């Protein structure tokens, strides 16, 4: 139903033939300056991550012990850390880790959460009871505490941190899809699909899922931002990336010993985390307005 509102976007004759709900949303999104700024930030960091070997002038894991905690200079743009490693190179490689952890953990949560949500919402009864209670239990813990517990069981490593973040975000998507499916399945087009003799699987994947994608994408984008922060938090606590991996949160925690002597070792990872998170949040907000005008506050 949300898509009905997109008809309020004035369509010109030439564009009319190609108008689809997704294209309309993109057209609205393009007009949103803050969202475009956010998209710019994301594209910038993605480019940095992809081109890391080209951009970085020093290896991220080898320091010059004579050049420890040096302030930013022409050779070391962001200065060096306590091991004499080039901060700029570490930040550049760190973009890979943060973006990878943020997106892949959220994709994992989306896949598992959507599946569970679809099952719970479509079949109801005891399946819904079971899945919803599991979600309730998971949501009863503060998410970072749950992540810490999971990493503590699996052992600290970047991969396990990613897994933990994926797990703690599953209920967010599960509940979102469950409620969406519960309202969608009463809609007449789903009734019509049943009347036409479609299988449950076809109704779920061809009718319910495509109509649930809009909120998934919006929440997913916003969730990438949270996931990046959670990864950084786990890294800060020493439960995520292990040395010498240049994870931004880990860099912050290493730098805290030297905050007065070498503040740049803290400032640059901090700014990087802030900017990526800001980028995803801006795009997420813009997407929400573009895809589903009713979700606006």
């Amino acid at each position, binding site marked *: 139903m949300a*898509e009905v509102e997109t008809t309020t976007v004035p369509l010109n004759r030439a564009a009319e033939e190609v108008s689809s709900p997704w294209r309309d949303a993109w057209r609205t999104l393009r007009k949103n300056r803050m969202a475009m700024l956010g998209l710019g930030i994301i594209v910038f960091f993605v480019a940095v991550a992809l081109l890391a070997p080209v951009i970085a002038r020093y290896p991220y894991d080898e320091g010059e012990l004579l050049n420890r905690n040096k302030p930013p200079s022409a050779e070391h743009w962001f200065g060096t850390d306590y091991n004499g490693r080039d901060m700029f190179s570490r930040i550049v490689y760190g973009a890979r880790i943060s973006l990878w952890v943020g997106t892949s953990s959220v994709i994992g949560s989306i896949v598992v959460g959507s599946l569970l949500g679809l099952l719970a919402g479509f079949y109801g009864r005891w399946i819904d009871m079971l899945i919803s209670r599991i979600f309730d239990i998971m949501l009863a813990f503060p998410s970072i505490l749950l992540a810490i517990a999971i990493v503590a069981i699996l052992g600290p490593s970047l991969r396990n941190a990613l897994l933990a973040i994926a797990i703690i975000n599953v209920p967010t998507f599960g509940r979102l899809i469950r409620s969406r499916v519960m309202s969608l399945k009463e809609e007449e087009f789903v009734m019509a*699909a049943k009347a036409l003799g479609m299988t449950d699987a076809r109704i779920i994947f061809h009718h319910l899922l495509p109509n649930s994608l809009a909120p998934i994408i919006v929440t997913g984008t916003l969730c990438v931002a949270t996931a990046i922060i959670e990864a950084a938090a786990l890294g800060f606590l020493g439960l995520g990336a292990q040395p010498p991996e240049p994870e931004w949160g880990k860099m912050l925690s290493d730098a805290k010993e030297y905050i007065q002597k070498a503040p740049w070792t803290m400032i640059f990872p901090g700014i990087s985390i802030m900017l990526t998170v800001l980028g995803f949040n801006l795009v997420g907000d813009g997407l929400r307005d573009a895809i589903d005008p009713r979700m606006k506050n």
Partner: protein
Amino acid sequence: MAAELLSVQQLKKYYPITGGVFGRQVGQVKAVDGVTFAVNQGETLGLVGESGCGKSTIGRTILRLIEPTEGDILFEGRSITKLGKADMRQIRRNMQIVFQDPFASLNPRKNVEKILEEPLIVHGIGSAKERKKRMEEMLEVVGLSSYHASRYPHQFSGGQRQRIGIARALMLHPKLIIADEPVSALDVSIQSQVLNLMQDLQRDFGLTYIFIAHDLSVVRHVSDRVGVMYLGRLVELADKDRLYEKPLHPYTQALLSAVPSADPDLKRERIILQGDVPNPAEPPAGCTFHTRCPQVKEVCRSVPPKFRDIGDGQHVACHLYTS
């Protein structure tokens, strides 16, 4: 007399009312309470009644979109209430439904081409090329053009969407179409276009309709026979002309007296019913209409009237006509 295509026998649909901490059943809403009727091949059976009387529930129960609580549904002489999923899928090729709200009945994420081809894909009919051809033919049949195929539902007007809904129902060449208030959501000028389209299709494809509506003049226009419902029960069923000229049940009389007339000089006696429709969770004992009936008798308060044939195919459930 044409052959009987569909027969509904003592159909009941009760919805449980649950309450309390443990979701105990504390009562039930009798949405459809013992309805019996038959539809003949090629005819249009109109079902009228006010909102909440169960007419849409009947339509959906016949298609088993809602499972009936009790009673039997025979399609071409075969009971379909106990059929498994696979058998039911075969039956669905012969029974389709057109919905009331053309804005909700089409998947907003699919274009017309996909919406119309999907029924064929589901039932494994034709190759991709044949499906496309049938889809384009069907668009022409319902008065749209093949260039509409790539458009999405939100790019159409209400009337056009309803045509797409009808086209989707027709893709499988069904024998029976249940039209659940197909024109109530449309403008009056568009209503007649869609009604005429449906009548043309009935003639061309030999369709049988169950036409559910609350607009009495629309029902009179399209139906051969008309059934009147009140609080989950059929109170009267007769040929269209007989029902509109000589309604027997006091409820039908009241209902018909409310139809506005185009002739301002015509003096009519308007029957105004007192009170509201009773709560279907606690229907009155005896005849459910006795609380509002202007001709109520003592027997009406305790004994539910039987739905009986009183001659010439006119059925009525009322104590006034017990011979």
